[in-house]
């Protein structure tokens, strides 16, 4: 019985094995998400507060002229909806990536990483699973927003999907890169202050960039260089059945760079070592 059979000794993995692994990881992440109702509710409440309160209050202050992809004057709520969709993904990406590196999911990461499939592929599957969860959140938000008169063309719900997948992957891998690379950002509050807020406010999520340019040209350049701006614009255009090619190029390039960087930088011992040397055996 102790001899190695042919199956065990062969090299490599079949395409079917890769796909089984990928669907398994996405399936589990979905199941876990459905069990964590609080996480779902808080993921929804955040953008809805912006939509119901902030946008309603700001409606009179900020006039939106006709800018692509919009063909008529629009309400402020309609303008910020794509930004809020991207915000959902930003939070989700940071949250799930942080938990991959630090304590909360350490047990799960142990189980994941003893899978024989290549580690880079496993991490890619994790990112894709996190993106899938963010899609559930975004579509739930769109459903509620629909009752609030944010009604993009019905085909837009479909055309926005590829854009959301790409932006979800970009933000998830950015989160993973940040949490692997910077030691100080060990809790979510730090990430909020130093990553989420600056990225969100220095973008086209809340105001069109031409307005920013009037106020401060430097801030405008900063916003233009912010990958989050391009995620928002990619989503905004896709929601109206159009493609913003520049944003697509920026988001695609950032996704590739962040993901490769994140996979190379990922080090499970970082999460473990925190307890390891201090507390003796982890």
């Amino acid at each position, binding site marked *: 019985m102790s001899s190695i059979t042919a199956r065990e000794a062969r090299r490599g993995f079949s395409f079917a094995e890769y796909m089984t692994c990928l669907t398994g990881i996405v399936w589990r992440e979905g199941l876990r998400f459905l069990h964590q109702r609080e996480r779902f509710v808080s993921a929804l409440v955040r953008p809805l507060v912006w939509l119901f309160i902030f946008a309603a209050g700001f409606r009179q202050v900020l006039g939106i002229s006709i800018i692509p992809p919009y063909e008529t004057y629009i309400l402020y709520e309609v303008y910020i909806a794509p930004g809020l969709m991207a915000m959902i993904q930003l939070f989700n990406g940071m949250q799930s990536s942080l938990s991959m590196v630090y304590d909360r999911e350490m047990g799960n990461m142990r189980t994941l*990483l003893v899978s024989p499939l290549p580690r880079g592929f496993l991490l890619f599957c994790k990112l894709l699973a996190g993106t899938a969860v963010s899609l559930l959140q975004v579509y739930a938000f769109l459903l509620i927003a629909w009752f609030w008169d944010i009604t993009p063309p019905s085909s837009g719900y479909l055309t926005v999907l590829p854009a959301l997948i790409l932006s979800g992957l970009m933000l998830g891998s950015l989160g993973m890169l940040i949490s692997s690379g910077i030691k100080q950002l060990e809790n979510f509050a730090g990430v909020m202050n130093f990553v989420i807020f600056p990225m969100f406010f220095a973008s086209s999520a809340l105001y069109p960039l031409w307005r920013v340019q009037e106020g401060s040209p430097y801030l405008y350049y900063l916003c233009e260089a912010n990958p989050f701006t391009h995620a928002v614009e990619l989503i905004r255009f896709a929601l109206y059945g159009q493609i913003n090619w520049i944003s697509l190029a920026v988001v695609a390039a950032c996704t590739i760079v962040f993901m490769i960087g994140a996979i190379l930088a990922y080090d499970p011992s970082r999460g473990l070592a925190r307890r390891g040397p201090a507390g003796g055996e982890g």
Partner: protein
Amino acid sequence: MTSPAPIPEPQGAPRPAAATAPALSIDGVSHAYGPRRALIDVSFNVQPASFTALLGLNGAGKSTLFSLITRLFGIQSGRVGIFGHDISKSPGEALRLLGVVFQPRTLDLDLSLTQNLLYHAALHGIGRSDAAARSAELLGRIGLEERAGSKVRDLSGGQMRRLEIARALLHRPRLLLLDEPTVGLDVKARADIIGQVRQLVTEQGIGVLWATHLFDEIMPSDDLVVLHQGKVLARGPMSRVVTEAGAQDVNTAFMRLTGAQTMPGGGA
């Protein structure tokens, strides 16, 4: 152990080198967390169809060693082989043959028993129907088939451990690592788990590495590795280790071996 690089075999052919290799070979492995050295030149083997107890106090380096074998930490120096596959060079081949039960619980508490098993099967590329059949069979073997659909959260500590062992066996590994699997369990649950694992050794020829600090879990016929402050102090069949230490039982042998080590440094 400086074996020559294996010659690539045609796909599907058994590899003779692997068939004769030890289930686990640890070869001159050292590891440090910054200035603190957790493992110092550790070497030992686990043979197929054998039960090897890795005995050491908390902090001896057992969990570090497990993290190296499971590729959670990169290997700083030395070599870890599983049936001849170097864990650094061909991790896929090595991990395919390895099942692990970690010391901290690693089950998804909110998912059902079956869901936990199916997830693990997917991680090993085992298709859905095959995975479902294997899960049902393993749940039957650990006497939890009636709980298949309940949440793991509702299980007792002993049941969770049995489930973790079943999960580690799902992809039919040839080597099983267990890191203090009985910690926090009552006497009955401990006996069940030890019995279950010993059965795997005798009936299925699985090589087992069982890390523990509990002397009464070791039997005279077991292989023993005594790890203390990152160093291997003794290794071999338990009866020989005990005799060579000039002791009557493993407890005394351990105290003599480690006492000699810790005295000059002022005790540990």
